[in-house]
């Protein structure tokens, strides 16, 4: 899993003290990748503005930054928010009512999902659940990586991150559909074990119990 290197932690500690040199160093380290992230969606001038807003946003949110989280991931998530705002202002990203706040879309949810929403979940709890699952997946993936078993990693990545059906994954990786189904079953079974061991709610991970 992506964790902050010690050099990032030390840099953040210095930025928190108001150290100008540390702030310039952080900018030097990360601005290029942030600019690359936004500039293929925007013109050069707007991309520059979004990077500036990202950096200001980082300083503003610094008191809430959890130093155990990857600094790079945190900066990218701020950049994604600032980029989305800019695209909405430009009218490119449709301003849709996509939240369940108006109560419209939630009616379409299955009963089990409504039950979950009725239990007010704190941000901390959501983060804890996600972190536990991330660790469980990471443990399996790290082992496969050590074994150089990239086919297994690719298989799960296509199934879960891309959401492709078994037959497409099988074709992509020159496996049989049965092999893909078996690998998926094994992976999900291990995650179910992790959920049970850590006493997490099964209701919030519907894919594990389909």
């Amino acid at each position, binding site marked *: 899993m*992506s964790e902050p290197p010690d050099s990032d932690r030390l840099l953040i500690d210095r930025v*928190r003290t*108001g150290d*100008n040199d540390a*702030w*310039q160093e952080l*900018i030097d380290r990360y601005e*290029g*990748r*942030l*600019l*690359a*992230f936004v500039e*293929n*969606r925007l013109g050069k001038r707007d991309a*520059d503005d979004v990077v*500036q807003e990202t*950096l*200001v946003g980082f*300083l503003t949110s*610094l008191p809430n930054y959890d130093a155990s989280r*990857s600094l790079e*991931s945190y900066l*990218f998530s701020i950049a*994604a*928010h600032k980029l*989305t705002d800019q695209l909405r202002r430009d009218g*490119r990203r449709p301003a*849709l009512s*996509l*939240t*369940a706040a108006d109560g*419209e*879309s*939630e009616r*379409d*949810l299955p009963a089990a999902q409504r039950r*979950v*929403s009725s*239990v007010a*979940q704190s941000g901390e*709890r959501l983060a804890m*659940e*996600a*972190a536990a*699952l*991330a660790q469980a*997946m990471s443990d399996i*993936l790290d082992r496969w990586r050590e074994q150089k078993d*990239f086919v297994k*990693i690719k298989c799960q*990545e*296509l199934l*879960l*991150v*891309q*959401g492709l059906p078994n037959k497409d994954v099988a074709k*992509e990786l020159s496996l049989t559909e049965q092999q893909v189904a078996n690998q998926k079953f094994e992976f999900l079974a291990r995650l179910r074990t992790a959920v049970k061991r850590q006493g997490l709610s099964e209701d*919030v*991970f519907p894919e594990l119990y389909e």
Partner: protein
Amino acid sequence: MNSLTAAQLEAYLDEALPAEVMAAIEQELRAQSALVVRLAQLNAQRDAGLHTLGAIWRRWRLTCPGRQELGNYLLGVLPQDVAQYVAFHIDQVGCRTCRANLDDLKRQQRESTQEAVARRRRYFQSSAGRLVKR
């Protein structure tokens, strides 16, 4: 665009898909209400506190190569199986943040130091006013 999976649409909500796919979805959203409904349902599931494994994988960057590994990929010095995996992750899965890192590393190879320094100084000047001792 109807063939977009729920996992890909969720990545759209997080601004995490390749730029050309993001633009195509935005175009589709203006014309097709069915896609709007699918996105609204996904958002409602999130608001209800449900997790998806793909979103956790993506946000925690479980299979993203490190910056140094990407540099070695660019230099062509990674073992073949690792290099093939990196190419798969960036080109086929379309990891947006790894693509940004790779593009940045490529830019560093062609950009003059002077250009980079000027840009970084500009970023510093526009943000340092928010730097406070805490």
